[in-house]
């Protein structure tokens, strides 16, 4: 599997990871090597195999419908990079 420069830029944009031109080539080479490894998957006949998402055939349990969470906003916002008046601060997104 070969990846072009445009593929790397697209993946980086989707993943919201800035990649400069200098490291892009190294990233490209290493991702291609990893994709070479996982391309071995193509050799497997999986026709009758059901996709497996959980290690055991168990139903996800339902909790009783009662309130257990309590307000911890202040504790959570104390560790935020920028918060004010109970709100998380981010760069302006609308004019």
């Amino acid at each position: 599997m070969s990846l072009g420069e445009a593929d790397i830029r697209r993946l980086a944009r989707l993943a919201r990871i800035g990649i400069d031109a200098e490291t892009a080539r190294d990233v490209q080479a290493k991702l291609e090597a990893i994709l070479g490894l996982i391309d071995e998957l193509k050799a497997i006949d999986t026709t009758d195999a059901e996709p497996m998402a959980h290690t055991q055939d168990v139903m996800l349990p339902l909790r009783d419908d009662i309130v257990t969470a309590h307000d911890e906003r202040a504790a959570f916002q104390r560790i935020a990079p920028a918060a004010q008046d109970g709100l998380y601060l981010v760069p302006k997104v609308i004019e």
Partner: protein
Amino acid sequence: MRTIAEMRHALATRAISSVELAEQALTRVTQSQPAINAFITVDRDSAIAAARAADAALAREDASALAGIPIAHKDVFMTAAMRTTCGSRMLANFVAPYDAQVVARLREAHTVLVGKTNMDEFAMGSSSETSHFGAVRNPWDAGRVAGGSSGGSAAAVAAGLVPAATGTDTGGSIRQPAALSGICGLKPTYGLCSRYGLVAFASSLDTPGAFARDAHGCALMLNAMAGHDPRDSTSLARPAVDYAHGLDASTPARPLAGLRIGLPGEYFGDGVDTHVAQAVTDALAELRKLGAETVDIALPAVRYSIPVYYVIAPAEASSNLARFDGVRYGHRAERYADLVDMYEKTRAEGFGAEVKRRILIGTYVLSHGYYDAYYLKAQRARRLIANDFIRAYAQCDVIAGPTTPTAAFPIGAKADDPVQMYLNDIFTVAANLTGMPAMSTPCGFTPDGLPIGLQLQGNHFAEAQLLNVAHRYQQVTDWHLRAPPRSNA
């Protein structure tokens, strides 16, 4: 004192206090840091306070089997009031608002938390070299890796700093460093120990577990860690089991009579170092002497476990690590033009190269047009691997083989070659894909003096059986008691 049992005996007979044990551990940790770098954070004051509380519990004689025992947590478990970094710049100053469930359970058992151990960044690695806080070094040879990703916990136990530590195992991250560091490491059945408060890497594979010098120590740790937790939707409600039950009993002549050990041809082929293969062969001979019989089995789909794993784990990681956006917690870039630029700079600065690679691979295999060919295909192949093991456990009770193809490799040897690094996990990832328990126990040394691990795998919920096999083996061998030169063990 090497083991939890020895420390427990000394505490019970008042030969030593928990505060004294904690002082010793703290001193050893400080002395060892320049050489092996096993810890990221050490908190002396909280350790001494916990030790005082443990001494009080011991005086009341209602204390748990782990009361007063110094331990360490892998720095991927959240701890209130002690920072949790995941070995990443992204979380270098992160102090979680609450304890992980495993941490809370071990606190309630009056263990004494000495500190948080070094690890591959976000648990992604097999050598503990990708940490923002520097590589962990192997106590047996400081020029070599301690294994990963829980390398700090493994090195801490191997060097005799603490008798036990927690770890997480997503593709071998407990068993592989246990093997490379010469100690015992247990990955339980998926769902037995809660993932609540564990910083997620690959949620369908992440499994909390334990390191200790011996199988008995792992059993005591599992007793405290296992249990249903409604806050983890994949946590299983199971009757409580005493995993240490019977391990104290005297050993009959043939304690493993009736046990069938499966030997998969796939684990004994090319690519296994000859010294590793010989040590495992010798261990199997010991197990036969103890009464076990060995049967040849086949796991034909297991050879696809590396490609399957390196689709599923990065896919889940790319989703889980989307939360690190510089808004709610963790690192935020200082300068940025707008919101998207803030995300991209924050994540470029906060994550190391391997974490970025895995996020990008995960993004790729989940992206439009590739989902069926990679992610869905891998999930189907995962089913074939699980079916192999289900069939195998009709023929045998446990499966044995080497934990790793080679002993510890030199620091830097594979750091720039992700594919070579990934192939370290060749014998360990299948147990994560199936969710079945597995452990590593020391079974010998290379001529260079590097430890070798024997992997024992079992069916779902077979922890007690695995621990019993390892324990019986440890009764007739002393590999698990060997200590590296200049260590305090």
